[in-house]
């Protein structure tokens, strides 16, 4: 499969973030066209394209838009989720910094289609300070040209967009956590139902979409649903950005039709693992996705194939781990992340993630106890699970379930390595520990 340049078409041009470059490449034609269509026609077009949300869950975008009630008592809102904090994911940052007008154009179309009130928000993670300044500049350009503000493109539709910065909380990428944060609260997810489409931000119906999802919308309006479906396979359509990182020679963001296999992506396009090393494991969809072994990489990177394989596409953050990586340490590091980022609201997640971190830490340091692997299973099944649906749903959002993904998959698939740590009180020969244990107390 050859790489494509669709979402990334403009990014290498000088001043790619400027409106002139974007207009030069045919920008804002889709928004102008969309505003002459009926909102329902746009929603139908997006449904026909089979576009699925690029933030992680892969929910059909057109269906989401059609859930928004007409004539709700409170204003309807469109929110862009630019909180990109899933470890291994850095695609939205590229679009924000290098092609912000594609996102803005997508927001104009989506806002019109769902009947949004005249204010939309881009919730961007606080650490993306540069990205927020790029967006502010791009929004100012769009306002100046009359693409935002009163009577967008001379139509009766009014829209402005505000950049709202987060302040360092992974949980605000969860849509109701994001909504709480935008309202000025601690970003703790809400009880669902009601779902945001009925009662979301400021009490109104709300649609929350990932940056890349919104960036696909102008492409669909311009080129049609069939064109969009010509990339990928049925139900897994469109151009897709894949983020590749870890122990790999050429990390970065790659664009392919949805469904390139993991093997092809890593070995044909990213140069494989460093010289003299062997692939050990791959996390295919950001830190929440269960690990795959080196034998399981002939799977297409799409929503349904990865789910069938017991993992998930998530945010398409592919983390490559070679045979020098101690998998217990890798699992510990992700468990530490989830323990840190658990919002503290639901007991299974708040307590369980900390216990997973504690037990993995002691196994990694050589203090593992004989029953520790079983302890991890027990704790994980009490937090939730991304794989075994019977275990999931013990907390309000998916963070707890997600936290068990990489940990439990590594325990299941690399149990020998855990046993080795417990028996020999050291890492497997040939793997290296990254934390210096004399510093570890301070970490």
């Amino acid at each position, binding site marked *: 499969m050859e790489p494509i340049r669709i979402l990334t078409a403009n990014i290498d041009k000088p001043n790619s973030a400027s409106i002139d470059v974007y207009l030069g490449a045919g920008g804002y034609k889709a928004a102008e066209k969309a505003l002459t269509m009926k909102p329902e026609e746009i929603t139908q077009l997006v449904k026909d394209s089979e576009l699925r949300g690029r933030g992680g869950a892969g929910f059909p975008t057109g269906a989401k838009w059609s859930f928004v009630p007409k004539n709700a008592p409170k*204003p309807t809102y469109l929110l862009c989720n630019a909180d*990109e*904090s*899933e*470890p*291994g*994911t*850095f695609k*939205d*940052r590229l679009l924000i910094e290098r092609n912000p007008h594609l996102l803005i154009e997508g927001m104009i179309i989506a806002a019109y289609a769902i009947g949004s009130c005249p*204010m939309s928000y881009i919730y961007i993670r*606080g*650490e*993306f*300070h*540069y990205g927020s300044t790029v967006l502010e500049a791009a929004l100012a350009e769009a306002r100046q040209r009359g693409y935002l503000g009163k009577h967008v493109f001379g139509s009766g539709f009014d829209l402005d967009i*505000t950049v*709202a*910065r*987060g*302040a*360092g*909380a*992974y949980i605000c990428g969860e849509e109701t956590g994001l909504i709480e*944060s*935008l*309202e*000025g*609260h*601690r*970003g703790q997810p809400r009880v669902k139902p009601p779902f945001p489409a009925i009662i979301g931000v*400021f009490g109104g119906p709300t649609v929350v979409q990932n940056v890349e999802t919104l960036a696909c919308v102008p492409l669909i309006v311009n080129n049609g649903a069939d064109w969009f479906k010509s990339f990928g396979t049925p139900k897994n359509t469109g151009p897709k950005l894949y*983020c*590749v*990182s*870890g*122990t790999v020679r050429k*990390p*970065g*963001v790659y664009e392919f039709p949805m469904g390139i296999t993991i093997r092809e992506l890593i070995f044909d396009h990213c140069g494989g693992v460093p010289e003299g090393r062997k692939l050990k494991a791959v*996390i295919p969809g950001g*830190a929440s996705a269960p690990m795959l072994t080196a034998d399981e990489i002939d799977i297409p990177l799409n929503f349904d194939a990865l789910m069938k394989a017991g993992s998930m596409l998530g945010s398409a*953050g592919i*983390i490559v*781990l070679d045979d020098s*990586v101690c998998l217990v*340490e*890798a699992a510990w*590091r*992700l468990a530490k*992340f989830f323990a*840190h*980022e658990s*919002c503290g609201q639901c007991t299974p997640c708040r307590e369980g993630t900390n216990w997973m971190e504690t037990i993995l830490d002691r196994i990694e340091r050589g203090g593992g106890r004989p029953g520790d692997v079983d302890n991890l299973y027990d704790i994980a099944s009490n937090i939730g699970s991304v794989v075994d649906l019977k275990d999931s749903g013990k907390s309000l959002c998916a963070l707890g379930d997600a936290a068990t993904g990489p940990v439990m998959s590594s325990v299941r698939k690399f149990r020998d390595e855990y046993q080795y740590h417990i028996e020999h009180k050291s890492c497997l020969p040939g793997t290296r520990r*990254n*934390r*210096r244990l004399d*510093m570890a107390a*301070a*970490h």
Partner: protein
Amino acid sequence: MAELHPDNPYAPDRFPDPKSHVEFPPEARQRFEHILTRYPNSEAALLPTLHLAQEVWGWISPEVVHYVGSLLDLSPATVFGVVSFYNMYNQRPVGKYHVQVCTNLSCMVNRAYDIYDHVCAKLGVNPGATTPDGRYTVTEVECLGSCGTAPVVQVNNDYHENMDVQKVDALLQRLK
């Protein structure tokens, strides 16, 4: 008496000093007024107002908590609850350069802990601490969304990507 945890909200220095007075300077006040126009209610302006306050004062002191609360008609407890929930609001003063080293998985396997340990050793500080001259604070942070250019070090608002021990040394030199 046992030492109080630094984040303990009941520690004596978590209460505002009645003698100290904080107020946005005119330019910041203007930006604050603009923020209010972008949201349907004043509570929603809390996060951006705290970002603004941190830009002005460098950290969110107890005085700032009370001041921001008074501006937005929120209780200090509500404001403090938000401040303490989010990582980026400094609850203690930080150095002129806040060196934040990502050690999450993609950075870790590209030797981020070597960088983190090196920076701490070089500056002679414990993780999370500030140098006595107030120039540097070093903290370990979670994923910064720059995994393709790991390891990454954020200094104040700026990302420094593809770092290694030599490059971080050169960076610290430049920050003097």
